[in-house]
């Protein structure tokens, strides 16, 4: 070994710098082939050795379609990956999957993948060789580039595991602190409240133990935290002594569609409703935790009549919800986008969290989660605060180099933030990207990366539902389809080698990960219980690594409760809801044809955008299904066909995220509209998040009609009794708890 590395430094490089780690003896990690006979090759890297015609073989990996990090199995036949299923060993997916996971293969085989490095020459992007691309990259972010410090920024989606380690390492070598982590579909406000009131920003939620779940806009079956995991827990919640689900939200989400009781409180008044329920519970003495008199006093203003007036939810209904929470204890109270993404969203979610505290849910249905022991590997979850910070940095001309990976801020940023315009002021923009999306095509240098099914990686799920924390391995399910794509980790590693000679001993990202996993502490196990001799082989086979986590307990703490409903007299009477949905997510999957032809769960519309309005609103506007309306905010306007249904508050209009792409390949481009574009630049006051649900709009009829293309000939069953419904009482009598 020519390069001297001390042990601590070595471990830090591998993302395990904590004290008390034991370095087991290891050979110099290199890539070895089966021919050399140096080790067992268990992954699918040598198809000619392993391809048995006609036989499908399953390999474990990790889904990268959203940031939940579900363990998957990929079916490989004749060297091609054909289908993905959940990995039963993964505590995140439990062997199940979601539409986005099922459709991941169409991202991998997408006809619009970028197949060679591209560089901006003059006004156009031209294909260049990797040598040219890498030397351009090195000249800007290499050790001799002269570009140092915070003039270099990186924007990524949620990131964890060793990808996060190499990003941190590169930025620290360059001396920059600017890592923007951006996701529109996030739970930042919820996490902030959990951190402040429970001492854990991502507590474990025991849906299955709850007798009643009261959700304020948390679409946990669709887009909230870890949908596949949540759906499995939901099934347990509904079986046996069937739990009751109450959903409070202005627009029916997938979760709302499954609620026993769907409550459309006026948009932005969720906090008042929660405090009204809390006040009533305290008055009745149903609370299991005592609260200081000062809190009681401040809650007293939320008497039921006042709350009914503000929220539009009747006194009787509020009483019924409150008594159910106490009768069917333990309960679980959660909050999502439509409650938290307002200017006072933190206060609303804190008010909602108060219910968990006084009802004694903390430590029962809400528990401390198992945190992965090594901090540098833990998930950095995307948010919209960083999007606002980036737009400010761009406006103030603070960046010379911006590297983007796995995120599309040009598409997701509201138009008024002028992210696209601001990017033109950045001297050198690099995009690590597989697809020609809006942000990628703005770059000066495009580095085509492997798809999620061709690349190596590790992921530490942000939401850890099991007693032991896990890290999941992403391994290639087949050889890269395109010759000229490279792994994200490989490119990062070759950059790091220039900065830090210590990295030179790793031939590639694969050998880096292999060394990193092999050098994990002794109590880390490779997906099988108990210590194993060969952690790496085990990890390849099972796809996961388990690590014991310190036992924590939540420390509930009351924060200042001061929810006030926001008034708005700006002349824009309606609330705009840019709704997220399982399938299209934030628009990243608009290039997947299966997900375009995939009917939205509620509106059942395909291949386009639509605006959901209540029949009352529709009759005021004089529109019928398929008519176009213009939705105008202070920041712009969009036009979409209406879909009229009762699952939305009459003061709200919902336009789903996902369409309205200017780029992103043939299936996405020029289809529908993007509601994010017309959002006002309003900020949640406590967290600095973009208040995506706070924008007010007016809706006008533009007197244009087209057929609204959607699934289903009729909106009701016309008496045919396909879906039959019985009461929960009857169920409890016949199937019940016994």
């Amino acid at each position, binding site marked *: 070994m020519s390069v001297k590395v001390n042990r601590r430094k070595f471990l830090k490089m591998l993302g395990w710098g904590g004290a008390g780690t034991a370095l087991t003896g290891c050979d110099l990690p290199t890539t070895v082939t089966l021919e050399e006979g140096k080790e067992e090759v268990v992954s699918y890297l040598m198809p000619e050795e392993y391809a048995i015609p006609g036989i499908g073989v399953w390999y474990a990996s990790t889904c990268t379609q959203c940031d939940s990090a579900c363990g998957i199995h990929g079916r490989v*036949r004749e060297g091609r990956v*054909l*289908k*993905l299923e959940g990995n039963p060993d993964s505590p995140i997916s439990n062997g*199940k*999957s979601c*539409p986005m996971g*099922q*459709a991941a*293969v*169409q991202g*991998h*085989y997408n006809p619009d993948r970028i197949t060679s490095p591209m560089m901006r020459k003059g006004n156009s992007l031209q294909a260049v060789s990797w040598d040219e691309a890498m030397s351009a990259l090195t000249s800007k972010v290499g050790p001799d580039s002269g570009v140092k410090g915070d003039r270099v920024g990186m924007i990524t989606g949620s990131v964890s595991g060793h990808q996060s380690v190499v990003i941190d390492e590169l930025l620290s070598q360059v001396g920059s602190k600017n890592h923007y982590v951006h996701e529109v579909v996030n739970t930042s406000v919820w996490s902030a409240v959990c951190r402040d009131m429970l001492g854990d920003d991502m507590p474990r939620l025991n849906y299955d133990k709850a007798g009643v779940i009261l959700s304020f806009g948390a679409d946990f*079956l669709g887009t909230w935290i870890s949908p*596949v995991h949540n*759906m*499995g827990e*939901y099934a347990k919640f509904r079986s046996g002594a*069937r739990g009751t689900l*109450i959903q409070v939200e202005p627009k*029916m989400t*997938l979760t709302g*569609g*499954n*609620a*026993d009781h*769907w409550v*459309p409180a006026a948009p932005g008044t969720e906090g008042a409703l929660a405090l009204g329920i809390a006040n009533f519970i305290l008055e009745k003495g149903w609370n299991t935790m005592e609260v200081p008199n000062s809190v009681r006093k401040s809650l007293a203003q939320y008497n039921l009549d006042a709350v009914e007036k503000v929220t539009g939810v009747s006194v009787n209904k509020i009483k*019924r919800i409150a008594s159910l929470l106490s009768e069917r204890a333990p309960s679980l109270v959660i909050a999502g986008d439509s409650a938290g993404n307002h200017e006072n969203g933190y206060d609303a979610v804190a008010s909602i969290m108060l219910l968990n505290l006084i009802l004694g849910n903390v430590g029962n249905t809400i528990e401390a989660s198992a945190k992965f022991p090594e901090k540098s590997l833990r998930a950095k979850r995307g948010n919209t605060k960083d999007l606002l910070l980036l737009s400010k940095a761009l406006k103030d001309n603070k960046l010379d180099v911006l590297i983007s990976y796995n995120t599309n801020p040009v598409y997701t940023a509201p138009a008024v933030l002028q992210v696209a315009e601001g990017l033109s002021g950045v001297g050198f923009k690099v995009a690590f990207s597989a697809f020609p999306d809006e942000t990628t095509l703005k770059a000066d240098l495009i580095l085509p990366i492997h798809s999620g099914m061709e690349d190596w990686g590790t992921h530490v799920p942000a939401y850890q539902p099991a007693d032991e924390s896990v890290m999941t391995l992403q391994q290639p399910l087949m050889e890269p*389809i395109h010759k000229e794509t490279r792994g994200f980790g490989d490119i990062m590693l070759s950059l790091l080698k220039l900065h830090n000679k210590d990295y030179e001993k790793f031939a590639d990202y694969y050998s880096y990960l292999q060394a990193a996993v092999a050098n994990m502490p002794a109590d880390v196990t490779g997906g099988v219980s108990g210590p194993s001799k060969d952690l790496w082989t085990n990890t390849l086979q099972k796809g996961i690594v388990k690590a014991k986590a310190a036992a924590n307990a939540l420390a509930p703490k009351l924060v200042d409760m001061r929810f006030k409903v926001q008034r708005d007299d700006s002349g824009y009477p309606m609330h705009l809801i840019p709704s997220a949905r399982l*399938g299209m997510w934030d628009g990243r999957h608009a290039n997947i*044809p*299966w997900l*375009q*032809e995939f*009917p939205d*769960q*509620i509106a*059942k519309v395909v*291949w*386009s955008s639509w605006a959901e309005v209540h029949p009352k609103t529709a009759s005021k506007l004089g529109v019928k299904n398929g008519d176009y309306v213009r939705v105008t905010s202070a920041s712009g306007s969009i036009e979409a066909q209406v879909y009229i249904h*009762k*699952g939305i508050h009459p003061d709200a209009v919902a336009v789903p995220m996902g369409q309205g792409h200017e780029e992103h390949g043939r299936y996405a481009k020029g289809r529908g509209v993007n509601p994010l574009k017309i959002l006002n630049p309003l900020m949640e006051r406590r967290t600095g998040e973009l208040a995506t649900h706070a924008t007010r709009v007016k809706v006008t009829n533009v007197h244009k009609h087209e*057929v609204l*293309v959607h*699934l*289903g000939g*009729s*909106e*009701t*069953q016309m008496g045919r009794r*396909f*879906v*039959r*419904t*019985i*009461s*929960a009482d009857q*169920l409890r009598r*016949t199937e019940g708890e016994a």
Partner: protein
Amino acid sequence: MSLENILENFSDFRKTAEDGGHHDYDHRFAMSIDLDICTGCNTCSTACYAENNLPVVGKEKFEKGQAMHWMRVERYWQEDDERDFPEDGAQFLPMLCQQCGAATCEPVCPVAATYHTPDGLNAQVYNRCIGSRYCSNNCPFRVRYFNFWSYYEDSWPEPLNMQLNPDLSVRDKGVMEKCTFCIQRIRTAKDTAQREERALVDGDIVTACAQACPTGAIVFGDTQDPSSRVSKLWEKHDIHRGPFTQKKEKANDEVRGYRIFDELNVDPSIMYMERVRDTEV
């Protein structure tokens, strides 16, 4: 089953359940779908696209009703609802071929392209199909899908075609198709069992929709095997093979199981379990 055989013994293939059915069945594959834990998320439908080489038809053809979703999830709103809001949520229904025991699609096929297998499936012989579409006209569930166009070029531009499942064909223009209960998976499982010199056991075969379903609402199995999960569920919910004899709409009001259009006497192989709502709230 040769064409000659069919022509000679045509009436044998038209036996209803009252006549003792078509076959001495080897298996009778069936499902149970619990509408209380089905969330309507559409995973089953996407999994079916991935498994069964279903083409994407695009917006214009979707509008004409030419989408090829073998498994589709319908969403219904409660009818005659006087309330301002759908207070008990939406109604979701995964709808797929019911693999009827006395299928209305089978006897009308002029060329016997749709026929009944000894496994209890309504099979479709693509090579025999002439595209008369009588079967889909006759299907009360509207789960037969006709290839009005050739999709193999438009729907899978390279390299999307590399994803196609080689275990089954891509169907061409003029051919009727529908859910097969993942017959290629059944075939593989049978071959494996035979090679291992054992009988099929419950769990050997999982359809793509059942495997993907994140809540486990779909259970697939063989009702000939009394120890299978699906048999036990059918038993528990008092659903039995054969003609529908009850005067009531449901076999047993005390339990949740029912079959859609049971009263048409088609002997569907899919038992649905009623959606539950807490009306007390």
